[in-house]
């Protein structure tokens, strides 16, 4: 795992565990200084932007869902928003609310997965959640129950949890039965309690003392915490439409780094995801989530990425509360989908995947056939920020023995819940050995 002379030390983690997809990290230390850091992806590229060309715009929710089995709803929602933008479609409030409910299900499922199964074991010195369950079975069962509730919301609204079938451009194939939606209230109330307990649990972990000064980028909305819509804002004052943001993002294909890196025009790095959303939108959280955050000692902005698990837990509270609110207010949208009339043009859609901002842009012809596609997932936008964290975390942890140093660095990657399957649709890998 780690090797080298007194002057040179190398840390290689060849399969980063407990992340979605397959990646590796490599750190070179020369004379006590971290000289090089790279997070590599050895997922083979799957060429989604290419295989979408010539397909119907109506197929984008189903096809792009297959980029990622962990956040398929995020892909479906960004695809729908982009195509509706291109076609000038107006979607009713009721449909938007149902989308938000579906999306809350994905946030609950994904955040519970990350907190309990992927991230918490780092703080407790366990290899995985099964080992954690040997010490505290009740806590793992609480996490699994939360995850189950997220899946239940997705199954009820979307038909199934992985690659939902009920989503179409314009809305849904059918509006879920009110009785089935009402039946979600009880599990969601229990989930809300479990989410509050989660915040309390994770806020008691020992966090490495570390601060990162990232530029935060997230959707923001005048009166709600952002999930399925909003303008794009940043911690340094950006305020643009999804389309305006897509114009600002430049992707570079760099051989050495093995990845397309997304940056803002002018070469600016940035971070999306829970820490960014929270920093830009904490004031729009419901009272119950704000109180939980305050009790956990979270200020209005969290700048320690190791504490992202607390922010994620606060968002879990929010998502359960929001889903419950939407369930209680539910009236089946009629019709369940807006008519989408193809026209030649370009459209952009941006939504908040559990792990950060995801945008799609399509150009379609007058018959609704895709001419070009561009999909920028959160992990590609976050990759430079993750590497910046890694560099500083490694530098500050050089006194650790090799195994502990490697684990600390892996943990620094997991702080950002990277989804390598998502990123890999345009990442290539040359692992440097």
């Amino acid at each position: 795992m780690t090797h080298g002379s007194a002057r040179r030390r190398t840390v290689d983690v060849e399969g980063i565990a407990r992340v979605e997809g397959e990646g590796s990290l490599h750190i070179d230390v020369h004379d006590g200084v971290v000289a090089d850091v790279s997070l590599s992806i050895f997922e083979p590229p799957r060429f989604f932007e290419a295989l979408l060309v010539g397909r119907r715009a109506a197929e984008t929710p189903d096809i792009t869902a297959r980029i990622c089995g962990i956040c398929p709803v995020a892909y479906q929602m960004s695809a729908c928003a982009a195509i509706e933008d291109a076609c000038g479609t107006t979607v009713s409030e009721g449909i938007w609310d149902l989308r938000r409910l579906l999306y809350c299900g994905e946030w609950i499922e994904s955040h519970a997965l990350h907190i309990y199964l992927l991230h918490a074991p780092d703080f407790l010195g366990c290899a995985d959640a099964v080992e954690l369950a040997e010490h505290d079975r009740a806590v793992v069962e609480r996490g699994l129950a939360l995850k189950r509730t997220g899946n239940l919301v997705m199954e009820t609204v979307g038909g199934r949890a992985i690659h939902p079938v009920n989503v179409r451009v314009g809305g849904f194939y059918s509006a879920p039965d009110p009785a089935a939606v009402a039946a979600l209230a009880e599990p969601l109330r229990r989930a809300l309690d479990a989410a509050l307990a989660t915040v309390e649990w994770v806020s008691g972990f020992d966090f490495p003392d570390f601060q990162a000064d990232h530029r935060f980028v997230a959707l923001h909305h005048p009166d709600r915490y952002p999930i399925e819509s909003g303008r794009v804002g940043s911690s340094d004052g950006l305020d643009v439409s999804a389309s305006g943001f897509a114009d600002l993002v430049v992707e570079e294909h760099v051989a050495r780094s093995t990845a397309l890196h997304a940056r803002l025009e002018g070469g600016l790095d940035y971070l999306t995801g829970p820490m960014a959303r929270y920093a830009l939108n904490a004031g729009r959280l419901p009272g119950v989530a704000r109180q939980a955050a305050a009790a956990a000692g979270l200020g209005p902005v969290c700048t320690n990425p190791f504490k992202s698990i607390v922010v994620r837990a606060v968002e879990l509270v929010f998502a359960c509360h929001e889903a419950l609110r939407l369930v209680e207010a539910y009236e089946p949208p009629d019709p369940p989908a807006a008519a989408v009339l193809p026209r030649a043009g370009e459209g952009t859609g941006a939504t908040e995947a559990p792990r950060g901002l995801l945008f799609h842009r399509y150009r379609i012809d007058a018959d609704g056939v895709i001419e070009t596609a561009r999909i920028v997932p959160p992990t590609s936008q976050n990759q430079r920020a993750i590497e910046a964290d890694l560099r500083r975390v490694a530098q500050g942890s050089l006194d650790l023995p090799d195994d502990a140093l490697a684990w600390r660095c892996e943990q620094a990657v997991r702080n950002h819940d990277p989804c390598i399957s998502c990123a890999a649709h345009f990442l290539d890998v040359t692992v440097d050995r």
Partner: protein
Amino acid sequence: MTADERPTLAVWKFASCDGCQLTLLDCEDELLAVAGAVRIARFTEMTKAVVEGPYDLSLVEGSITTAADAERILEVRRSSRRLVTIGACAAAGGIQALRNSVGSAAYAGVVYAHPEYISSLDTSTPISAHVEVDFELQGCPIDRHQLLEVIAAALAGRRPVVPVHSVCQECKGRGTVCLLVAGSTPCLGPVTRAGCGALCPSIGRGCFGCFGPSAGANTEALTGRLLASGMTPLDASRLFATFYSGAPAFAEQAAALAGRDAGAAGGCEDRP
């Protein structure tokens, strides 16, 4: 039972979306019981711990799209007593098998500024094209109840019991009115393997074939029906060429329909 006596389970990933291995973690009510009955010896998405092989049961997700992966799957086979593939990518190449008709070089040029940095095979092929496979569990994504059946069967040393008949029978079973007959909605249910519970027809949507071809699927007869209902050959071709575009029964229809469309309309006309 001590830890060492439990059968070992390994989970492997090739080109895929992670959704099928996530299905194992989606067995929330059974996960800890499964982890008690088998020793999870290698599952990178879930654990840092790695137990060296050989493994009693390997679950393999994803398709083979790189030269390195074509080598790696041989090693996985050598270290596995029983190898079960999970999902459409592993069984038929997945959605990424759409490259098979054009080659990855053409695709790389669309996605990458420097296609010369990309090392990818021209095809996305199923695991069974490379090694012997003991069982293929179908679906995009797989069904979690079927996954538990596969694991239970492997532990018991028997063949999994999963249906090979079509989605049509599941519609009949749940009393869903036939979309194809009653509403002329294009539907692949007659030629698609059961397992989802006929989800799409139950919400008024035609089946789009995400569990792959059923046993003895008569795709040609269905094609006639799709065209008679007003679907263009190119749209019918797209319907067959999605998540199981690499499965021969679907691939043949997709190619024939695309050819018919090109012959009929010069390859550029396509109206809904």
